[in-house]
């Protein structure tokens, strides 16, 4: 399968999740609210969008880790002469691991998105538990910290004059997740948490 076509498997769920997270997500899911009652409430839509986004983030991060392992074997996955060439970015040994522990960025992404998935999944299952407000704050802080990592990775891409489309999808999932966690945190702080 073409690598850009395969990317759609991750990009489409991320975009759908992002649309559900945004305030105008209601108009998109109105026909589905009878079958899925949780989508009728603002809180339910943001939780659903956030779950979808975090799942897509886990998947695209694992795919990125897989690509970096394949490239290290001497193979290629999405090499291209155009600016969109994830092989050139993920396969660059100077930039493809974190500077402290040497862990591939895809592995770090997969771990972080699993943590985010745990936070949002458990919060959605028990939204009135006393730990939910803490979990939503942790999610907001983690995704906000991700902005600094994204900034550094985008800087690397500028240095290489190449863009890794798989990495960009993971960056987008982090931004969408930040908006989702932030919106849920604000809703949780209001007295209308159970009626939104």
């Amino acid at each position, binding site marked *: 399968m073409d690598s850009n076509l395969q990317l759609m498997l991750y990009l489409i769920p991320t975009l759908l999740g992002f649309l559900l997270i945004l305030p105008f997500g209601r108009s998109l899911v109105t026909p589905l609210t009878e079958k899925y009652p949780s989508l009728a409430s603002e809180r339910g839509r943001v939780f659903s969008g956030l779950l979808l986004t975090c799942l897509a983030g886990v998947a695209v991060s*694992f795919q990125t*880790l*897989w690509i*970096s392992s394949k490239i290290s*074997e001497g193979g290629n996955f999405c090499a291209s002469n155009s600016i969109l060439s994830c092989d050139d970015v993920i396969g660059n040994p100077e930039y493809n691991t974190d500077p402290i522990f040497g862990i591939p960025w895809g592995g770090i992404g997969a771990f972080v998105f*699993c943590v985010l*998935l745990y936070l949002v*999944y458990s919060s959605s299952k028990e939204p009135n538990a006393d*730990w939910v407000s803490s979990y939503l704050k942790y999610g907001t802080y983690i995704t906000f910290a991700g902005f600094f990592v994204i900034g550094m990775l985008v800087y690397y891409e500028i240095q290489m004059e190449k863009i890794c489309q798989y990495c960009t999808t993971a960056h987008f999932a982090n931004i969408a997740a930040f908006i989702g966690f932030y919106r849920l945190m604000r809703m949780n702080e209001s007295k209308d948490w159970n009626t939104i």
Partner: protein
Amino acid sequence: MKYTYDDEADVRTTTLIRVLALFFVGIMIIAATTSPIATGTKEGERAPALEGEFYNGSGWSDFNLESYWDAGWVEGDITGQWVAIEFMDTDCPYCVQSAEKMAVDANDFGGDASSGWDGAVVNFIASATELDISGHDSSRAEIIAFRDKTAGEECASSDCGSRPGAAHNFPYIDDLDQENMKKWKVSGTPSYYLIQPDGIIAWSSSANPGENLRDAILTLVPRESA
């Protein structure tokens, strides 16, 4: 005894187990479908990039070590071309002394039919740097003089034209800024690496003290008569 059911603990534990299962399934799929090789300068690792401009006797042009690699090479294939890299400094006395051996080795294993070598071709490359040592003051002109064995430049306190051995016929990369040397974590010169046609480091002088490059080539590079 009264048992109580804790809903909150159950939600978090169940969720954690599910997410952990997802994480480990992902890791297992990657472990089962790939065999990652680290990039580095130890034996068995993939050689890092070696870039810059090289002099091959006629002028300076762009060099990229990756252009030598053949991802489809399999062990024992005699048609694959190996690469021997020397990290050197034209003002390093040991590098000047070893210039003669390098000339002989490059002629013996570089694919010249008259040499009697019936093994895979070994491409020799030198990466010339300028060490941060007093008296080590190199330049591109000095690299050219060292390689071509021409007079007029000083190599390790003697005229480059009087260095031992014949003129070299292999490329010299300009690494005067030590960029490649640092990338390869070379601690001293001369340092040697023998690299397989697929880009994997087969032998390094730092990991095999007492062994020389010629012995490594004779031991590791496949030959027809072996």
